[in-house]
């Protein structure tokens, strides 16, 4: 993993939401590198902050959110201020939203929706933008004379919508794609096809951050896995390694859930201090309550935020 191949990186990012007069911490010091040619899966449960990280990576956090600390940088340049973001958004770092139907304008047909970025953000002539759109749609698996290209989102199947959203995101040929749960609403074959699109994009030299809650699918399709819990990355490493020998108790729990198809134990109240996971952790001991564990690098470049990682077993 050479430094030059890192396209986008997040350094020590802390994001706080203002809700009902109180601050809620969504991200608490997250650092991730998105590397050229790699699909990084960001795995976590609802409310873990994974979508927030995705929005932070395109500079589109909602109005009630603020970045307390840390920053996002693209190709070595720290992105601060709307001016810089405007340059990078869509062309440098693109974002594919979670719900493909809600994310497509109901009044815009497929071709117009995909050509919109090249036409209005890159300033290409409409015909050129349409050609770009057709290329992107072809890479998303549409034939160039597919009748679906002139349909409106409501006339498309779920899988088609998703591929249109994907094509719209890659139409400006971004270096980095953030895909927020592209497989959440799909059945297994379609989910596999979608992950193939992400891998294909990475092979063409982009970096992909794939947000998902499906550790089993991530193990199958991603190069790297980052596990996020309560706004912190608790384990990050090569996909195979992480799945074969999880070193964080939360990863082990997720794996056990994925294998047994039993629901995970419910999240308890988030701890005020110490390790956020200790309420659900089988290895928790008194010392977990005093200090929050830092990410520590293990052999093989893997990082884990648990001092008792040697004791972790998949239940």
């Amino acid at each position, binding site marked *: 993993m050479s430094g030059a191949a890192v396209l986008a990186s997040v350094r020590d990012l802390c994001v706080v939401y203002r809700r009902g007069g109180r601050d809620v911490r969504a991200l608490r010091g997250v650092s991730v590198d998105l590397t050229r040619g790699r699909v990084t899966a960001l795995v976590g449960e609802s409310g873990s902050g994974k979508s927030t990280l995705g929005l932070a990576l395109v500079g589109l956090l909602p109005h009630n959110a603020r970045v307390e600390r840390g920053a996002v940088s693209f190709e070595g340049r720290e992105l601060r201020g709307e001016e810089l973001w405007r340059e990078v958004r869509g062309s440098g770092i693109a974002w594919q939203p979670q719900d493909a139907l809600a994310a497509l304008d109901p009044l815009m047909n497929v071709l117009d929706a995909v050509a919109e970025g090249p036409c209005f*953000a890159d300033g290409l002539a409409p015909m050129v933008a349409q050609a770009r759109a057709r290329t992107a749609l072809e890479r998303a698996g549409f034939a160039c004379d597919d009748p679906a290209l002139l349909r409106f989102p409501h006339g498309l199947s779920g899988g088609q919508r998703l591929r249109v959203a994907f094509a719209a995101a890659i139409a400006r040929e971004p270096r980095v794609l953030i895909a927020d749960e592209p497989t959440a609403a799909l059945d297994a074959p379609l989910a596999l096809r979608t992950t193939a699109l992400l891998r294909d994009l990475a092979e063409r030299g982009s970096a992909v951050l794939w947000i998902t809650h499906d550790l089993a699918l991530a193990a199958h399709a991603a190069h790297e896995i980052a596990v996020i819990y309560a706004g912190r990355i608790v384990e990050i490493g090569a996909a195979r390694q992480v799945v074969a020998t999880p070193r964080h108790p939360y990863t082990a729990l997720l794996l056990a859930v994925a294998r047994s198809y039993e629901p995970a134990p419910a999240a308890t109240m988030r701890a005020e201090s110490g390790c956020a996971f200790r309420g659900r952790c089988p290895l928790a001991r008194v010392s977990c309550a005093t200090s929050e564990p830092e990410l520590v690098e293990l052999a093989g470049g893997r990082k884990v935020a648990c001092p008792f990682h040697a004791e972790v077993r998949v239940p």
Partner: protein
Amino acid sequence: MSFLLRRLVRIVPTLFGLSLVTFLVLRLAPGDPALLRFADPTAPATPHLAEAIERFREAHLLDRSLVVQYLHYLGPFDLGPEGHRWFGGSGVRPWHGLLALDLGHEYLRPQVSVASEIAARLAVTVPLALLSALLAYAVAVPLGLFQALRRGSAFDVGAGLLTLALYSTPVFWAGLVLQLVFGASGLDWLPTLGLRHRDAASLDALESALDLARHALLPVVCMSYAALAYVSRHMRSAVLECACADYVLAARAKGLAERVVVARHVVRNSLLPILTLAGSILPWLVGGSVAVETVFDIPGMGKYAIDSLHNREYDAVAGCVLISGAMTALGFLVSDVLYAWVDPRIRHDRT
């Protein structure tokens, strides 16, 4: 096409119900067209007068039962003394009533058919209502849009209060205030009564148009301000709803400038429900013309309805109500068709 036909057919029973209710309410209300026409409270009753009243009642079937009166009104047979032979008439005028496509005649001017009078009045009221709707939309759409885009600003709050005030201001009061301020008693900028100058016939085409515009300005403003407030409040909430839709966020993520996002996604999508409001606003404006036309003395449909009510012109009032009802039903139909036409979601569900 069959959708349109079904909807059109469904209007018919509504109109029958409306005609029955209007008929009953008019007959139950106090007042008697015959007495109103002939009786002079200061003069002593004479046998001659009583006979005239009797003949008037007979001619218009006012002495018959309500059922017969309604069947006469509904048609298609004339049940009167000169009506269809089947019903004991002389057969001079066999057809009468709604089913014979006849809205009846006035009592005071028997030669005037209600239908032609309403048509003439609509030719005044409908252009006024259309102009008012245009004015309302032209102001309300940008107003609501900018309010929503600057949500919570002083402009938004101010415009919100203003539209609330406008929406709750009674039309007749606003009309009188406009007359006082701009009419001869105030600034003396604009004429306040009628649609035409006294010597309009002697003016050339341009002067005549100007004269009409000056006369129409205050009534149009008066007719439109409530609709303006209504539409702009709807527009504001539609924009706010669209602005937090996922496709707007996705459009921003494509790297589009905010201006482009608003024009291509927010405005287009929020105009959808606003456009279809037009179908219900137009009949609403025509109905509201009663107050405006009375205050500004304009010979339109609203004025006709009020005058006819004063004179107990049963057929004329019922005709006005029926035509307004038909326009309202058609307005809703038009707004549904508009919606289906502009919204691809509905277009697809039908095909």
